[in-house]
């Protein structure tokens, strides 16, 4: 399949799932395809002290490990503050100038506690191009339009009071069909549910195993045409019709509880001991395993795939593999501990560790001949746990206290 056909296929899938999202938007955790690959031209060098290639930097009113999202000429980010992280913020900035266009304040209705390195604002918001769905560890789900007008507010822990994890929850919501889907798995009221985008009313709800899980749902279009959501947990791997909640398949495969499932070209990659690739193309009742490789793994950041290449980070070891076979092609030791999923753009992987150290890895060649090397290391000077967004030839990074736009502001020689 040529790159052009791949791009058309991805665009068609994207339009099916979220009709208002454009190819330039970065509308949720890991971008519009749930696979953090961007066509943007991102800088390879910047300097936060000198301001080199820093488009703008804006102070945030609270903390957060959620990633920013970009819709049109606006970037949105959530934050939480207050003594117990009970204050919830949704903020909107102008992509070009960094000017704060609006800010909305709310109060959490569920449990707000978390590990000190995390925050109530942990899940990355998602947008269908018209509406923003901001979700928090306290299980508050807020729907606003792009101008900050409230459409509805749900306190899912207000409805199900035992829902919560005092270490913090982090699963990001997804939009599929006419619903927004949240995965709330914990030792108390554990469930996943779909909320109608426009009314805020529950469409379906599925009890889940009462075990802690931080993995986010992902979406794809089933071969029967149904918008489909995939949920992974330590107890198994499930697919549901997003609009009806009908079970599409149920695989008793125990999966990781931190990384999120990844769908690329009708193949599903999950962490399960190592990495397992499953075939979503087949009309078989359940997806079949294509390969499973124990020596490939991911335990904080989620994996990335482009064409014939697969990338994952386990601890501080980044590995590149053949996405068709799982054969490991290269590995590279990075510095630090990672939670942010890397972004892949223009043959470069952007890894950011939790201390805010950006490590840019250049990919030389593709397919089985690919090699990798670190070409740039940049200290952002603040903790970073959220996955960045890439759009408008810029990287949008959310650090503990700031939102940054990193872009080529200087002319490239």
């Amino acid at each position: 399949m040529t790159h052009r056909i791949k791009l058309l296929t991805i665009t068609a899938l994207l339009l099916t799932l979220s009709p208002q999202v454009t190819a330039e938007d970065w509308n949720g955790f890991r971008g519009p395809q749930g696979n953090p690959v961007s066509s943007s031209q991102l800088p390879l060098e910047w300097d936060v002290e000198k301001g080199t290639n820093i488009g703008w930097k804006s102070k945030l009113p609270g903390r957060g490990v959620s990633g920013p999202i970009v819709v049109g000429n606006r970037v949105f980010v959530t934050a939480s503050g207050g003594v117990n992280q009970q204050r919830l913020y949704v903020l909107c900035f102008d992509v070009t100038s960094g000017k704060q266009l609006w800010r909305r304040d709310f109060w959490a209705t569920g449990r707000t506690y978390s590990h000190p390195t995390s925050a109530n604002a942990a899940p990355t918001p998602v947008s269908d191009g018209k509406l923003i769905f901001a979700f928090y560890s306290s299980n508050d789900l807020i729907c606003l339009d792009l101008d900050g007008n409230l459409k509805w507010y749900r306190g899912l822990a207000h409805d199900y009071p035992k829902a919560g994890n005092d270490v913090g929850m982090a699963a990001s919501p997804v939009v599929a069909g006419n619903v927004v889907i949240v995965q709330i798995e914990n030792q108390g009221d554990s469930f996943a549910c779909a909320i109608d985008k426009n009314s805020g009313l529950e469409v379906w709800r599925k009890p889940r195993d009462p075990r802690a899980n931080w993995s986010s749902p992902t979406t794809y279009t089933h071969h029967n045409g149904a918008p489909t959501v995939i949920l992974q947990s330590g107890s198994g791997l499930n697919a549901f019709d997003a609009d009806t909640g009908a079970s599409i398949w149920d695989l008793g495969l125990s999966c990781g509880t931190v990384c999120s499932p990844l769908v690329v070209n009708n193949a599903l990659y999950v962490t399960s001991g190592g990495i397992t690739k499953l075939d979503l193309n087949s009309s078989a009742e359940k997806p079949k395993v294509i390969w499973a490789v124990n020596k490939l793994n991911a335990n904080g950041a989620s994996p990335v795939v482009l064409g014939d290449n697969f990338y994952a980070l386990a601890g501080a070891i980044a590995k590149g593999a053949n996405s068709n076979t799982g054969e490991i092609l290269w590995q590279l030791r990075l510095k630090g501990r990672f939670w942010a999923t890397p972004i892949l753009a223009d043959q470069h992987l952007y890894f950011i560790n939790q201390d805010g150290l950006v490590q840019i890895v250049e990919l030389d060649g593709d397919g089985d001949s690919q090699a990798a090397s670190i070409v740039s290391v940049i200290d952002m000077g603040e903790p970073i746990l959220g996955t960045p967004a890439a759009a408008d030839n810029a990287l949008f990074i959310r650090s503990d206290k700031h939102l940054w736009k990193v872009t080529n502001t200087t002319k490239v020689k």
Partner: protein
Amino acid sequence: MNLSIATRYFPRTIAITLVVLLYSPVHCVAVEIGELTATIRNIGPKGEGHVAAQQAWKSLAAQPVSELVAVLDGFHGANQLATNWLRGAVDAIAQTALNESISLPENELQAFVIEHDNAPLARLTAYEWLLRVNPKLKESLLPHFLNDSSLELRRDAVESLLQKAKLSVSDSQPETVIDAYRTALNHARDLDQIDEATKQITDLGGKVDLPRHFGFLLDWHVIAPFDNTNAKGLDVDYSPEQEANRLIDSDATHEGKIPNLKWKSTASEERFGIVDFNGIYPDKYKGAIAYAHTTFESSSAQNVQLRLGCINANKIWLNGKLLTRNNVYHANMMIDQYIVNAPLKKGTNRILLKIAQNEQEESWAQRWEFQLRVCDTNGTAVLAIDR
């Protein structure tokens, strides 16, 4: 107008005035806002009332900024969900006004903020918008917040006291500085501010009874271990639960994971009242249940809160009635982690805790402990009459 004329025409005057008021635009707006906020206050759990509330919200958010206080009035009696819908409307109205260079009604907002009968979160909202447009107002407003039921407003007032105490160190006697910090401490309800005031007071030679400040219960009778293999014991009615509403018998023996268990007394000396079962039982039982029992002498029948911090699965009974059950293991522990409303009776109240340890082997899954305090809804300690 003489008295006879006034008497003659007064009823008619009132009637005309009422008619004018009823049909005046101002009254219509007020009525409409009242109806709109009432519609939003009808929001219930699980999306109840959303359809009507969505329409009401649109109309509310389109109100002129002159009606901001009327919208804030609508917070009164609102549940947590409706409060957030109303906050969204206030933010939209105020932001629109500022974008159009229209001033906020500062005087009305100030009056609203200092009136403690208004809803705490509505007052906080008004305060935050006032400070956005006129930060200088903060100093004049803070003295109104020292005993505030809005803990966020109270926090700002306490912060100001802490700063003033800090500034007084260089030119005041230690006793004066201690008094200043003690005033801050007495009003503080947030842990970080209590910690800061306590540290400064003790560094200056003063003393602070932290467990008393919080209302932590320190004296307990405990008994363990009962079986919790495979985490199956939380809902097993072991023999100590028979004593949830009566005086415990220290001489009686109970059959647990090991035979002939007896209640033993213990007193926490930890600064936040933590009772550590691994310290009391050096065998550090796993897959085990411990019970803790205490009494609370209340001066009157009163509604209080029992606030538990616990890293293990737990249950709380008050006078034999189960108040809460939390089947959560090793997911962090902090002060006030689990809050339950508790109706105390006058005289002796009996509190029984069940604290369940599981069998996880990870180093971070070994703690087996709790802390419990009695306080009001603002976190102010409620002390037993014999303390």
